């Protein structure tokens, strides 16, 4: 197991110790070690703990990507976290919710960068983020129909009278 993955595992152990069953087992693969939040409602607490715990100090959210798990009927987000100026560990966190009407707690108050990323995830996939201060579409126009990056997305025929497909 490479050193980086071991560090991630160690960080995971701290979180596991604190939250127990709320987080799933760590997937310590070499390319992107991650764990999943089993209890979605705990995600904001976990996030805050991860940021503020002196051993973890995940103060930098590198990326937050929405994902469509069509087979499982779920939507999710993947957050890549690390620490700047603190320990050198990195870890990814997955949070999932139901595909229709699912919601995930917003962490935009923990990491400001999550604000726009969550808006983007909403724009592309349509999950809602509870407690998001500014829950709007960000890239597509406000009156756009559908969530473009869902696997079953069908593009609309016209937008404001302009033909959309080629």
């Amino acid at each position, binding site marked *: 197991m490479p050193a980086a993955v071991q560090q991630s595992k160690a960080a995971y152990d701290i979180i596991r110790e604190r939250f127990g069953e709320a987080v799933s087992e760590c997937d310590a693969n070499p390319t992107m070690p991650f764990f999943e939040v089993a209890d979605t409602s705990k995600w904001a607490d976990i996030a805050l703990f991860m940021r503020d715990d002196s051993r973890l100090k995940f103060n930098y959210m590198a990326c937050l990507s929405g994902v469509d798990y069509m087979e499982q009927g779920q939507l999710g987000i993947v957050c890549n976290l690390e620490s700047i100026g603190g320990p050198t560990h990195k870890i990814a966190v997955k949070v999932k919710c139901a595909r229709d009407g699912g919601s995930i707690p917003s962490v935009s108050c923990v990491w400001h960068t999550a604000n726009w990323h969550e808006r983007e995830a909403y724009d592309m996939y349509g999950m809602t983020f509870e407690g998001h201060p500014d829950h709007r579409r960000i890239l597509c126009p406000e009156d756009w129909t559908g969530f473009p990056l869902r696997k079953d997305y069908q*593009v609309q025929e016209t937008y404001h009278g302009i033909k959309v497909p080629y």
Partner: protein
Amino acid sequence: MGLLDARISNRNVLVTSVDNVMNWARLSSLWPMGFGLACCAIEMMATNASNYDLERFGIFPRSSPRQSDLMIVAGTVTMKMAEKVVTLYEQMPEPRYVLSMGSCSNCGGPYWNHGYHVLKGVDRVIPVDVYVPGCPPRPEALIGGLLKIQELVRMEGIGVSRQEALKKLAEKSVDPQQVIGQARKATA
């Protein structure tokens, strides 16, 4: 019909020469609107910059649509942007020209098939006079496109609509395949 009538109806000498001067003025001072959208905007800036220097032709960008004659649609026009493009086009005073620069604004370019949010060609919302291909077009290509617009202006005049001018130009145009063949021979 007398000789005189024929002369007048066939746009007499005076009108033609006035036309020529007016067209010369318009084609010599095409002020484009600095309208950068995407990658092509950078090439447009490079064309304006020292190495290619559009000001040689009297083309110098204005930031207000009211003072520009030419709109260079440089880059991808998205659905969100399309309406703004139309607004800006409508703000320009006549006579106005549109040059579509780059694949994206010609027909959606690389984003034509899956780009749900990309307008598949700016000619769907505003009339385009010249299409410059390339992704992005080289500055040379943009200059070539602007020269084409100048040709178009030269063909216009009092009582000559843009369609007629285009028709005249089409008669004069060279077959692209021939040009490619020549270029190919030259490089071979």
